[in-house]
């Protein structure tokens, strides 16, 4: 994207606008935001190339006080928006404001952004409870602490945000408090850092956590020791921002054609007068759909309109696989099949799903099947094909093509050469194996 250069005549003294912060007196959010202002001023960052993404809560109000781009999103999801922004425009500085509440509800996003090393700067405003909603406990509330939802003391243990981010790959991880003198420097460092940077900043919620727990600056510093946690810069390793890395990986792909049209020329005649319904009923994993698709291509090469709808369970390679194909000289609207003119039945799984077809078929219709199902009750005329007589090795994965080819020969909807060409053109890799199967079907049909 073309970006017009901006003229900064004199150095900026602040990146705050004239609006006063809305927080309670003594709220740690004020301290952290002032630190950030110092960091931005130190960097003389271009406000048009910087986006502050804020989460929900008191902290979610904070983006409004800066003269940068701002994105105020949903509770816990700030990291997802920030990731999208960074991926779409890797040159932007993307800074996330999130509370300990947002960190809890959006934990999966934090872990994944850390793991991917998306080049964000995440500032966790960690005041050990939900401020905005009235001081409920959060994932970082210390064990035993009193909050609106732990009136008798918190029975849970706190999440170690830094360890979680760090162990999952975050390149830059810092733990400190809103009282740290070096916070502006650390923030500036994190903003300039290439990969995922997280600063877990402990602070005071003077409206709730402080009065509920007799908790002040001294107690907060003490908590670090009680929990046996380390503070300061915990991780600082060389990693590449995900957004840039993704683009670097794609360099060789640039300009390659995308989903090009695959026009099919009509080369063969056909003998189809109205809608002709053909069903192939077999087992999942036995190349039923692929045999049906080849028949479809062959039909199109023979000037027909074709549709194919498949039915199979959600599981893979087990259970039934049914392909319903319609060939028609005119455009096909309705793609369903209730009474097929031909059914190729190749397995027990297929039989279980063919009851409706078999019941609806009449003496004008044909059932193609293997000796195992020779006694299947139906009014349809039966053509029994014995794969053992094929003369080539027939396996679970080429039986579908063998019966499809035999059926197409017998039905004579279009020349079998169309099917062979479909194999050569659309299944190039397997042509050597599949062409002999199609050839073998001739012998089977003439002997049936």
């Amino acid at each position, binding site marked *: 994207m073309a970006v017009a250069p901006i003229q900064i005549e004199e150095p900026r003294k602040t990146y705050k606008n004239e609006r006063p912060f809305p927080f309670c007196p003594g709220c740690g959010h004020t301290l952290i935001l002032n630190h950030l202002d110092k960091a931005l001023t130190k960097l003389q960052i271009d406000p048009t190339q910087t986006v502050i993404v804020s989460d929900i809560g008191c902290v979610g*109000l904070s983006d409004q006080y800066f003269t940068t*781009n701002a994105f105020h*999103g949903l509770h816990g999801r700030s990291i997802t928006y920030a990731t*999208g922004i960074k991926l*779409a425009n890797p040159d932007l500085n993307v800074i996330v404001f999130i509370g300990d509440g947002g960190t809890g509800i959006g934990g999966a996003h934090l872990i994944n952004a850390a793991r991917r090393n998306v080049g964000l700067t995440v500032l966790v405003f960690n005041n050990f409870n939900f401020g905005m909603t009235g001081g409920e406990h959060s994932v970082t509330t210390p064990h035993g602490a009193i909050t609106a939802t732990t009136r008798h003391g918190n029975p849970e243990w706190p999440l170690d945000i830094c360890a979680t981010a760090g162990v999952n790959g975050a390149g830059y991880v810092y733990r400190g408090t809103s009282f740290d003198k070096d916070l502006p420097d650390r923030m500036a460092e994190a903003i300039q850092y290439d990969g995922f940077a997280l600063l877990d900043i402990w602070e005071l919620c003077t409206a709730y956590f402080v009065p509920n727990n007799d908790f002040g600056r001294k107690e907060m510093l003490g908590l670090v020791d009680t929990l046996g946690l380390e503070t300061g810069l915990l991780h600082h390793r060389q990693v590449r921002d995900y957004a840039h890395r993704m683009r670097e990986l794609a360099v060789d792909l640039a300009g390659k054609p995308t989903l090009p049209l695959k026009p099919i020329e009509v080369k063969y005649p056909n003998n189809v007068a109205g809608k002709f319904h053909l069903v192939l009923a077999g087992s999942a994993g036995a190349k039923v759909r692929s045999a049906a698709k080849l028949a*479809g291509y062959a039909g199109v090469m023979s000037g027909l309109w074709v549709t194919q709808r498949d039915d199979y369970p959600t599981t893979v390679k087990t259970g039934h696989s049914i392909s319903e194909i319609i060939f028609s000289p005119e455009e096909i609207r309705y*793609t369903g099949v209730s009474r097929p003119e031909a059914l190729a039945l190749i397995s027990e799984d297929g039989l279980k799903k063919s009851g409706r077809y078999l019941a609806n078929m009449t003496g004008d219709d044909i059932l193609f099947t293997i000796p195992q199902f020779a006694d299947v009750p139906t009014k349809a005329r039966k053509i029994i094909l014995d794969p053992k007589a094929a003369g080539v090795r027939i396996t679970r994965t080429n039986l579908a093509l063998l019966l499809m080819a035999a059926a197409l020969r017998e039905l004579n909807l279009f020349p079998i050469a169309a099917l062979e060409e479909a194999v050569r053109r659309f299944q190039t890799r397997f042509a050597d194996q599949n062409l002999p199967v199609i050839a073998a079907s001739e012998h089977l049909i003439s002997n049936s």
Partner: protein
Amino acid sequence: MAKEYIDGATAIARGALAAGCDFFAGYPITPATPILLHMLNELPKVGGVGIEAEDEISAIGMCIGAAMTGVRPMTATSGPGISLYSENIGLAIMGETPLVIVNVMRMGPATGGATTPAQGDVQFVRWGTSGGYPVIALAPSSVAECYTLTMRAFDLAERFRTPVFILVDKEMNYAMATVDIDEYVDAPVGQRPLVPQHRPRPAAVDGVRVNAVTGKPDPRLRPEETYLPYDFDPVDAVQPTSPFGGPHITRFTTSSHDEHGFLTKDADKVRRLNDHLRLKILNHRREMAFGVSDVQEEADALFISYGTTARAMREAVDRSREAGRPVSGLTLHTLWPVPEAMILDAVAGHQRIIVAELNHGQYIREIERLVYRDAAQRRILPPEIIGLDRADGELITPEQFLEVVNG
């Protein structure tokens, strides 16, 4: 007349690429996964970005964030994923985010049937987020329409700065079909209105800052914001935007906001914002109304349908006419906002209206609402409105249509 043999998912992906889609985030779910696979494969070739997100909430969140940098995002999912999109759909409406959401519907409720066609999310996408604000939803009923309507979805998303749904189902996404290549009709794709890039900033006339959009001096402007991103004038007009990374700073917010993008509870300002979000869609519904009306003068019955079910309907219409019985058919390509004029035009003169859909009767509510209100206003007797529903995983057959019309 060259032909192709492809599925709807490929046509949707191609339509997206043709419309300039350059960002896709999604999470795998049958029957929407083929679109995810195509987009992740293809986007790097055009300098775009495709990502498999950690969940659906993240997928749509990434799309919304990305959209604000000026890219054209798309995501694709099915009912269970739309459930997780819900809160962010509201955010996209509130933030006036151009975003195309493909919902490949599967049978519900809950996990329902992953590989079973259904059209049960029609009212869900309309009312799927808090507040009840309008969305746009298009429903193709052929592979070629998947291509064209995807382009239209991008056009509407951009021009109206709003999320647009494409509603298809497993049948449309997966079924292979012959397509006449001439039927891939390119739709014009517009662009979201942008703040003129060339205007100097911050600019001032006699010490008063100048609005970058109107060029007029405006004392309300802050030093860093030489335009008001949410100063709707008139209230139903889409405002120019400036992408993150462009020459202006921009504010995006989930909360009720004033003309600057700052949080507000001022009733007048909140009302103006909410009217804007509603009326920018509803007052332009005619521009969004697509469909195929095939009305026969002598017919007493009109079928109305959409998506996969409209295919059976069109076959039934052909068969009925061949059998000497006139019948009319209306295929809706736009479901939301309801194409009221198109529907009332088609309904006029018919005694029976048959609304067919793969659910327990969702869109029929809109038809009833429209037709009964119209009849009451005009003091005429309304036609009979009959639902043809199915929700067992099978398609509605042409025979079912014919039974209703002949029975």
